[in-house]
């Protein structure tokens, strides 16, 4: 069996992935909002607030999406659609 199809590694890989994906979207969302605030729009708290909220949404959405494509999960669910 090629190791890339080993469910242990594939599952561990997915698990390690999701945590950082959540964090990274938060960083990017907050960062973009902060840049908009300080350099472009001068609207101090609001860009970062909106950016952080969007970042959280994006992170959770990504986590949901990769959970739906979980390797080794039963193939009948949404992953086929």
């Amino acid at each position, binding site marked *: 069996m090629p190791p890339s199809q080993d469910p242990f*590694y594939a599952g561990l*890989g997915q698990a*390690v*992935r999701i945590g950082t994906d959540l964090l990274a979207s938060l960083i990017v969302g907050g960062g973009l909002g902060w840049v908009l605030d300080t350099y472009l729009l001068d609207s101090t708290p609001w860009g970062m607030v909106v950016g952080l909220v969007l970042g959280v949404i994006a992170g959770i959405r990504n986590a949901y999406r990769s959970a739906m494509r979980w390797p080794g999960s039963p193939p009948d669910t949404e992953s086929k659609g």
Partner: protein
Amino acid sequence: MEESPLHPFELHNYIPLSVGGIDISINKAVIIMWVVVALVAFLMLKAGSARQLVPGKLQSLGEMLVDFVRGIILDTMGKDGMRFFPLIATLFLFILFCNLIGLIPGSYTVTSQIVVTAVFACVVYGLSLVMGFLLHGAKFLGILVPPGTPGWLLPLMIPIELISQLARPISLAVRLFANMTAGHVILGVLFGLAISGGLLIGWLPFAFTIAMNGLEVGIAFIQAYIFTVLTCVYLGDAFHLHGHDDHAH
């Protein structure tokens, strides 16, 4: 005796060099990278030169590594991803050996420097952007609009998709860097405890150090694997626009 757990990550220049104001000094990380490049090149050349039907030890190792990367590419990108095989295999082998060589006491983990991982991530993500725009032109911007989005949701979905796209290189870089750094900090702290604990109680953290070292070997492998898989996924997304569901088999 009191030493910061981050002390092993400090770099000191061995040979200060500077070309046109750019600092290209030789330090430990650079030397370790040279060692890794030489090691990987030697290993793969030696393994590839045997070409026996019944492979020897080295040839089996080489074939296993190459086959592993090939499996990842075929799983995530399909047949047309094989043209990226040299790049992806090189990345995988380099990261894997950097991670592994860092576990040798007295050595240095190059991948615990965020500069290194960020460069890898930027190369991969930049390549996927270039590929996407070359293949699809302006239509590639459609990657920001998930299929089946109703029109009134567009002002919300485009920023969200933009954020999750921009998060890709960051998560790629931060994941590798954070995992390698954290692992080595834990090893350092545990070993410090073992030394300061003395014989009476010091054996306990020392045993944990050994167990953690074993775990770190696994993590070194898994992080290289994740980096490779995500490289393939991002390049694949640039290939098959909205192909998320096509290659989920």
